[in-house]
């Protein structure tokens, strides 16, 4: 598969549909697994890593799945392509740029499932769903895990469960993570309160690109930290419960916005669209902030001529690697800001002409 064929697609997590998609952008579950017969990736020799890659590739090619996973080698991949896959949430920044040696990723054409090989753990399975779909995602990844496990001997311990390089992941090796768009809680300054409550119950809050990243465009990822001592269903159930509560808060805050400052919100949305459609230089951060306003406007029905999927499209295509692929050559920071503005202007004009 040539990665460029993915360019016009939204990928599963930005499909913009699925349950509760007015607030929940996407759901992701990952499982950390290791092969029994090798040291963990951090201590494996290049030769061992090569063996791990070939055993996993072999297993992947033989498992029966509803989708086909294609393997992509990371060390031989151009840096731009790696960044592109990071932006599409198919690989981690670590796999792209920090780790060394034989490693790669297998994913399906719909970009709903991926298997990273020789990340911090030998295997990092991931399933993505748009909207709020923890149960579906679990059922998918459970099956993927079962089929890989039938061909690979996992490191498993009767007391500690699935063994992982970092003891913070041991046991289930599971991280359930839900990406939320919470602009109204941000506007009404309630967001910190929500997060403080989350930390008390041991759930983590992260920005768009996971650990250490800032929350841009009111997007937050909420995930479990505890992986040991609870069943997968229990862990996911606890996340679910919390997300339902946050959903309610966000919707209440949106209702208040509509009731108390409809005109002002309408104005904010119009200005955001105006800036997006007329700027000649614009950063990725500003784009995300403005798109967040537009997205809120769509869900508050303050505008009806921009579909939610268009916002997702603009969101992904204006990220650095995507933009450079669209343009077809590398761009430095300033050039990127200009190209981004040009792209946004053209796309919004197109949308306008379809009115």
């Amino acid at each position, binding site marked *: 598969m040539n990665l460029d064929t993915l360019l016009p697609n939204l990928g599963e997590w930005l499909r913009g549909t699925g349950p509760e998609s007015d607030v929940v952008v996407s759901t992701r579950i990952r499982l950390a697994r290791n092969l029994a017969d090798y040291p963990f990736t951090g*201590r494996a020799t290049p030769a061992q890593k090569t063996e791990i890659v070939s055993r996993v590739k072999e297993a992947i090619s033989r498992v029966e799945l509803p989708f086909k996973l294609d393997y992509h080698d990371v060390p031989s991949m151009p840096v731009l392509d790696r960044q592109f896959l990071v932006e599409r949430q198919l690989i981690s920044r670590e796999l792209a740029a920090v780790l060394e040696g034989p490693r790669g990723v297998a994913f399906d054409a719909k970009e709903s499932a991926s298997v990273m090989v020789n990340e911090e753990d030998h295997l990092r399975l991931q399933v993505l769903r748009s909207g709020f779909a923890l149960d579906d995602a679990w059922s998918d990844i459970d099956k993927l895990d079962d089929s890989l496990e039938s061909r690979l001997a*996992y490191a498993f311990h009767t007391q500690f469960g699935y063994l992982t390089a970092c003891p913070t992941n041991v046991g289930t090796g599971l991280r359930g993570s839900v990406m939320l768009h919470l602009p109204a809680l941000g506007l009404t300054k309630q967001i910190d309160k929500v997060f403080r409550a989350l930390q008390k119950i041991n759930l983590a809050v992260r920005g768009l690109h996971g650990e*250490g*990243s800032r929350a841009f465009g009111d997007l937050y990822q909420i995930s479990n930290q505890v992986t040991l*001592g609870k*069943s997968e269903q229990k862990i996911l159930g606890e996340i679910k419960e919390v997300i339902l509560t946050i959903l309610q808060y966000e919707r209440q805050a949106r209702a208040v916005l509509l009731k108390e400052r409809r005109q002002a919100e309408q104005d904010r949305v119009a200005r955001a669209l105006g800036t997006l459609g007329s700027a000649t230089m614009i950063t990725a951060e500003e784009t995300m902030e403005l798109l967040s306003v537009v997205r809120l406007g769509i869900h508050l029905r303050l505008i009806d001529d921009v579909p939610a999927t268009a916002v997702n499209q603009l969101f992904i295509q204006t990220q650095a690697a995507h933009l450079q692929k669209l343009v077809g050559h590398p761009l430095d920071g300033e050039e990127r800001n200009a190209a981004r503005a040009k792209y946004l202007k053209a796309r919004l004009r197109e949308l306008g002409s379809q009115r």
Partner: protein
Amino acid sequence: MFCDNEATMHLTDIVNKKKREAHLCEKCAREKNLLPEEPGQPIDLKALVSLMMAPEAVPIAPTTTAVPIALNCPKCGLTYAAFKGEGRFGCAHDYEAFRSILEPLLERVHRSTTHNGKIPAVGRVAARAAKLIELRAEMSAAIGTEDYEQAARLRDLIREMEAEGTAG
């Protein structure tokens, strides 16, 4: 001057050939956005793990606790110090080798020390994995006591089981 704290930041701006100086304390500088934000905190696992492994009441003077500095994994050679530094294990056997310090750590992170979720669907895979761990430990022990005959026997057994694992 904005407050009574000692000025530790000295800024010189030259705008339109006019020199402007400001002397402020770090707090004021931060409030006025003159300092870059503190670097986004990627979770510092190193610090986290050593924090979690510190005794409950942090002693001021280094104590001569029986922290098993000498602990290491016979299989991959990971030392306690290396684990403390990196926060990562080197291989599956470390879970046994470091059990004494691991269990309190797990208790703090997960409030549990025992897995309660999915187990490999193919039960024998789990059993085999556990058995392999056991056999490898036995083999290392045999090597340790220079019982090479026993070690060789165990090695062959392990190879046999690993081969079964791949064929399965």
